[in-house]
């Protein structure tokens, strides 16, 4: 049997991907060994309670925000027809292309005291500072708003895929039993989509936990800002990694909640054809349109316009070949990383499905933990073992060939791609798992009984059915890599820059006009996959309709 061998390789893959997490845990354990808890006890007495409070508020707020926006837009664009629905169905992904901290900068520019909104208000009314109340964008509430606006596409994308796959018969049975469209949504579609909603929200929350740029700029102290403060300020890297270890515990709790919610029921449905959409008319159509445009305008169009207006007089940048090199680097890196991550995720997800032993399940779960860990912490956890490996390789090579190959692992793109894989595996793993649960186990069995080899089952049944999930995973990872900053900053090779690095270096110095072009370019490079994805989505919609033409509905 191939099973023990395969099981071993799965566990090994997961363990390798968990390398940085092992380093974090190891440092945490060292603490128990030496008993040196001075930094931690100081932090507990002074700031950690506040970190926990803020992080929890942030997570509750963002969860509420992304579910509210993501689910309502996903339902409206899949199951209703109204003016603009087709454009919106892909345009709602655009906020994903915006790094959260850039959106934070643009909103501050628009809404703070010296911004255009408050200035117009003062000019109209003649008020001065202190004469009126205006919400402060740089606050916990502002951070919740900005992160919700940037992260809701996770929920939208994954929930939408589920709504698209929901069987017509279920919804039509509901309608024939006299349910209104609203009731169909609340009582049928929503409970059926629960796993997808939870998955999307989990992703958004993990990203929230790992966020540093936005909360730091808004002056909101969270666990992640605490990690950096401990490292940079107290100069205590070990203490910082211990805090990161605590963050890991929170992530494990999140993942357990997600698992638990999914294990409540099996959600695969007989998939004959898609339900006929509700055609909305009159004020309902306008309301639906408004509900969908609002997050798009707030999450993408306004920030993009603000960026463009800041960088109007920096147009020369667009003609510099060096700038296009940045775009090329970013895109190439995102594409390569997305392919690697998705292939690994497929390998692990299938392993877990076909050999569901406790050991395999545990190790696959472990491999997906990296998403909520700030990229820089992963980078550090990776740097230590890779440098060690490199030093062995160099010593061996010197002894055998009298040749110094240099830092083959830690000084090249290998380290960067490794870090991306650790950090973003969870995104594709969860997306692909969500897709896999839609494929009924009986399909595999039927195909095997008909004499299909496992590979044929994969090629003929799973791949076509999984395609939307795989493309979704590619897109999500690609866009995430495009935006990724802290790990890229510290692990990249010499003279290798990306759009995110350039945008950050400019924005970090508060040179927002110079940050505009790379940020806009990032959005544009991110647009290409979004458009590809939307085409794939339309195609799968069409093929579903075709199927309907050939297969008469008998059930």
């Amino acid at each position, binding site marked *: 049997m191939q099973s023990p061998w395969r099981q071993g390789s799965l566990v090994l893959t997961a363990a390798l991907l968990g390398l940085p997490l092992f380093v974090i845990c190891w440092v945490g354990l060292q603490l128990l060994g030496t008993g040196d808890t001075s930094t931690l006890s*100081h*932090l507990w007495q*002074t*700031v950690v309670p506040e970190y926990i409070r803020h992080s929890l508020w942030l997570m509750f707020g963002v969860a509420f925000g992304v579910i509210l926006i993501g689910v309502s837009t996903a339902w409206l664009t899949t199951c209703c027809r109204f003016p603009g629905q087709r454009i919106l169905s892909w345009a709602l992904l655009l906020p994903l292309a915006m790094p959260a901290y850039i959106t934070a900068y643009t909103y501050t520019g628009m809404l*703070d*005291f*010296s911004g255009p909104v408050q200035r117009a208000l003062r000019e109209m009314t003649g008020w001065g*500072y*202190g004469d009126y109340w205006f919400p*402060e964008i*740089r*606050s916990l509430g502002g951070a919740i708003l900005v992160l919700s606006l940037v992260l809701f596409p996770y929920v939208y994308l994954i929930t939408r895929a589920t709504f698209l796959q929901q069987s017509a018969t279920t919804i039509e049975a509901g309608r024939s039993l006299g349910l209104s469209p609203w009731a169909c949504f609340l009582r049928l579609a929503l409970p059926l989509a629960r796993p997808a909603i939870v998955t999307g929200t989990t992703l958004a929350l993990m990203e929230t936990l790992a966020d540093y740029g936005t909360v*730091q*700029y*808004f*002056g909101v*102290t969270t666990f992640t*800002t605490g990690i*950096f*403060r401990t*490292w*940079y*300020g*107290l*100069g*205590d*890297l070990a203490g910082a990694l211990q805090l990161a270890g605590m963050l890991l515990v929170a992530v494990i709790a999140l993942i357990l909640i997600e698992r638990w919610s999914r294990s409540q029921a099996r959600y695969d449905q007989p998939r004959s054809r898609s339900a006929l959409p509700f055609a909305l008319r009159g004020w309902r159509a306008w309301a639906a349109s408004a509900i969908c445009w609002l997050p798009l305008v707030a999450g993408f169009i306004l920030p993009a316009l603000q960026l463009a207006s800041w960088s109007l*007089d920096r147009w020369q940048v667009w003609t510099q070949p060096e700038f296009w090199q940045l775009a090329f680097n970013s895109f*190439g890196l995102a*594409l*390569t990383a997305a*392919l690697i991550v998705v292939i690994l995720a497929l390998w692990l997800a299938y392993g877990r499905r076909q050999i569901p032993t406790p050991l395999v399940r545990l190790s696959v779960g472990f491999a997906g933990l990296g998403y909520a860990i700030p990229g820089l912490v992963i*980078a*550090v956890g990776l*740097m230590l073992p890779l*440098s060690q490996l*490199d*030093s062995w390789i*160099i010593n061996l090579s010197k002894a055998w060939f009298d040749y110094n190959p*240099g*830092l083959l692992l*830690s*000084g*090249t*793109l290998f380290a960067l791609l490794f870090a991306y894989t650790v950090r973003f595996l969870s995104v594709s793993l969860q997306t692909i798992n969500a897709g896999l649960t839609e494929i009924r186990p009986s399909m595999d069995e039927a195909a095997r009984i008909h004499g299909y080899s496992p590979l044929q089952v994969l090629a003929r049944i799973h791949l076509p059915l999984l395609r939307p999930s795989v493309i979704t995973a590619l897109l999500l990872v690609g866009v995430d890599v495009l935006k990724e900053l*802290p790990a890229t*900053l*510290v692990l*990249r*090779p*010499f*003279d290798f*820059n990306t759009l995110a690095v*350039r945008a950050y*270096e*400019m924005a970090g*110095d*508060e*040179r927002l*006009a110079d940050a505009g072009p790379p940020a806009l370019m990032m959005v544009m490079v991110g647009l290409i996959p979004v458009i590809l994805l939307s085409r794939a989505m339309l195609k799968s919609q069409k093929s579903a309709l075709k199927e309907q033409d050939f297969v008469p509905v008998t059930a």
Partner: protein
Amino acid sequence: MRKLLVLSTLILASFTTAVSAAQVNVYSARKEALIKPLLDQFTADTGIQVRLLTGSGDALLARLTSEGENTPADLFLTVDAGNLYRASEAGAFQPLGSADALAAVPEQWQGADGEWVALSLRARPIFYAPDRVDPSQLSGYGDLADPRWDNEVCIRSSDNIYNQSLVAALIEHWGVEKTETWANGLVENFARSPVGGDRDQIKAVAAGVCDLAVANTYYLGLMEGSDNVQERTAAEQVAIFWPNQDSFGTHVNVSGIGLTKYAKNVEPARQLVEFLLSEEAQQWYAKTNNEYPAVPGVQWSERLQNWGEFKMDKLPMKHLGENNTEAVKLMNRAGWR
């Protein structure tokens, strides 16, 4: 799919760069746009290629130390004294050794045994609104904690290294106890919970949110030279007050550079340090970045001259590094976010 694979292989292959003969490798906490023009000038003058890796100082230091003797980095450039001190403590530096260039920089702005040397100085004075504040009411950093300025002080988060260095310096001058009392008073006087960067604090003074703010001067320089009219107007509405002129002087931090312990290109690296301390490079710093030259006698740019001469704190930089941890703990206790 196959096309994608081939494409990504090609892209990966294009990333591997050829190694040229004479070169020097720099890990830099100073951002690319603020150092690259100088490095390009160096390459044009000497033919020595400079390879650059930018990032946050702490992260680069972690990379440098974990790479150990295999590190490709010859020089480590930071924008604060704290990281120079930490690198020195971690044994990541070796003495620079080029005596003439070093001799030009005052001793307090060099590391022990000439392990690192300052390239530029960054002053952190008080900014005030001249239409609301009479500067004769001010004397130094101590005023920031005076109840008279209740609800009138803006300063950024204590996560920021410049605030940490400032408090570290005050600990050296005043002792922990007095500094903590001061920090408590300062937090009482906050006009708002710390948000944004230094430039935001200056703008807040211009907008009337607060009367006093603490910020590095080069942010004012950026605002004065901005294309944005509102930024320039805001810059005109604030003035610099140089604190503690009758005592220890205005707090300054350094950006500096050190030769790594396992540098492979020692000679080119020394040449680069000498170049960065040359009059030409020092003037460029002052003009482009609005920072003060580390070499005394180098002519200040017009903007720096407009801000006026002032007495700088002569505290040896190593104290900023030594006291940094204590400073952060103190700010944690004071509730300075």
